[in-house]
């Protein structure tokens, strides 16, 4: 018997992800919101939505702060109260958590939670510098660290302790590109082969270009309601039945455990407990594959396999569409793309599609229970939510 619904998703929306030249973040969000509105004809956005919570990592990308009211205005919600959440790459997973608090406390019956990031108009060097702000500037970037470099050190530690291979990491990329090729909203809709991944240029050894997720523009959102009123808006809601979040040191260098991300593990343990489900119950999962090693680490932190066995899990094909748990059916951050602030709610959007049988060619048949796992920075934030078909 699974736990009680904490809140219900009655609709979800996502913009096309990709390099969307000349489109500002607020305009991207219009596309996501319109998608959610159109999927839910029983909802009158202006009348029903009582608050907007939007995740976004940085003002640096557009020289624009105060995202909440800006976006609310563009999607016709002014004068509802708004809030922006910031937790680096997990900004909109934290928006979902804030939405849960708003609904569960009784403050609002219906809220929109979402996320957005506009990145591709900036030079790659600028983007990587902004993203690195999610780490410990005085002791990491100042000393020469890059974001891929820090995950590369997690990968090296994992290889040393558990024998994880570069091939296993590359297989994560191959799998996620295979899924992304079936997602019409994904940034990269093309297959890649193992040889290409392994021979791509080195970014931070052992991580190569094809181990890295994409710099992407995009927006995504969910309409959350109190569970009791969900059926007023849709016959097929998806319930959030578990949620967990944890923090860790801002610097990777301070941690005793360099092979895994404890915030993801702790968030998962909390979410499983609240949802009264176990790792084996999860049918579909969207996990944080900002780098391929991060997906392998996520398998372990979420209990899909034993510690150290994540590389083997992907090598055995257990995380593909026909595997024991289908992971990153959307293409993940790797192929769908990673507009950092939009990623948390985009993961939930994919799980919503899967649990309402709307995932098209990549549909996992009969998926009942889904999970999202979103990491901020080097795991200084970890958020896990668990969902059930309504």
């Amino acid at each position, binding site marked *: 018997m699974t736990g009680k619904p904490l809140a219900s998703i009655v609709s979800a929306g996502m913009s096309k992800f990709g390099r969307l030249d000349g489109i500002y973040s607020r305009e991207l969000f219009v596309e996501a919101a319109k998608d959610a509105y159109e999927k839910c004809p029983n909802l009158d956005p202006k009348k029903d939505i009582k608050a907007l919570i939007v995740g976004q990592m940085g003002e640096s990308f557009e020289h624009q702060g105060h995202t909440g009211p800006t976006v609310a205005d563009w999607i016709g919600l002014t004068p509802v109260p708004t809030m922006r959440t910031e937790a680096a790459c997990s900004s909109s997973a934290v928006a979902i958590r804030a939405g849960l608090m708003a609904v569960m406390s009784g403050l609002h019956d219906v809220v929109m939670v979402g996320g957005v990031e506009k990145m591709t108009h900036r030079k790659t060097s600028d983007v990587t510098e902004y993203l690195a702000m999610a780490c410990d500037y005085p002791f990491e970037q100042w000393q020469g660290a890059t974001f891929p470099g820090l995950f590369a*050190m997690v990968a*090296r530690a994992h290889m040393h302790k558990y024998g994880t291979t570069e091939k296993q990491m590359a297989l994560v990329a191959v799998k996620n590109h295979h899924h992304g090729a079936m997602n019409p909203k994904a940034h990269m809709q093309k297959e890649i082969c193992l040889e290409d991944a392994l021979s791509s240029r080195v970014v931070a*050894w052992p991580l190569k270009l094809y181990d890295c997720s994409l710099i992407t523009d995009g927006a995504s959102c969910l309409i959350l309601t109190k569970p009791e009123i969900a059926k007023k808006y849709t016959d097929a809601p998806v319930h959030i039945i578990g949620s967990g979040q944890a923090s860790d040191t801002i610097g990777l260098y301070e941690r005793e455990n360099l092979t895994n991300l404890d915030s993801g593990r702790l968030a998962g343990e909390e979410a499983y407990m609240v949802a009264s489900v176990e790792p084996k119950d999860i049918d579909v999962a969207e996990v944080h594959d900002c780098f391929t090693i991060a997906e392998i680490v996520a398998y372990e932190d979420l209990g899909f396999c034993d510690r150290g066995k994540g590389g083997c899990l992907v090598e055995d094909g257990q995380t593909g569409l026909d595997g024991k748990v289908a992971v990153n059916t959307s293409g993940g951050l790797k192929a769908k793309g990673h507009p950092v602030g939009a990623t948390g709610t985009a993961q939930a959007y994919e799980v919503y599609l899967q649990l309402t049988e709307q995932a098209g060619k990549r549909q996992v048949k009969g998926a009942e229970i889904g999970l999202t796992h979103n990491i901020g920075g080097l795991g200084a934030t970890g958020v896990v939510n668990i969902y059930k078909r309504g």
Partner: protein
Amino acid sequence: MSLLSEVRPFTIESFYKFVGDGKLMAAKCNNCGTVTLPPRPACSKCLSKDLQWVPVGNECKLLTYTMIHVSPKEFESKVPYALGIVKFNEGGQLLGMIRGIEPDKLQVGMTLKVDFERTSTAPATPAQTPPQWPQWPRYFFRPA
């Protein structure tokens, strides 16, 4: 006590001032004995503010590493460069560049020594322009 002999505050700025003097210094808690590196204004374990500066030994052990091939502009002249996380016997861990070693000689668990960059010889900033922040000196690691 004169101003000059006052204990330096247990801050990031102080830590890097010591680095500029060629010293790696940590904060030791007089209450519980925990050594916090880099220092914090309160003990990372018991939150006591009763702290003292203690030197950290020269030797450390490499926990993990990478070779950076794509770097920020500032470090472009150095690529590819090795970067590692090290652990000190006294407690505490740091991240920094590893110099003077071939990439294929790097090994998890190897012993490294701490060294310090010489202070920058950049021309003095005109008085009316605030200097760019930060301007901390850097430490690095090399084979023992």
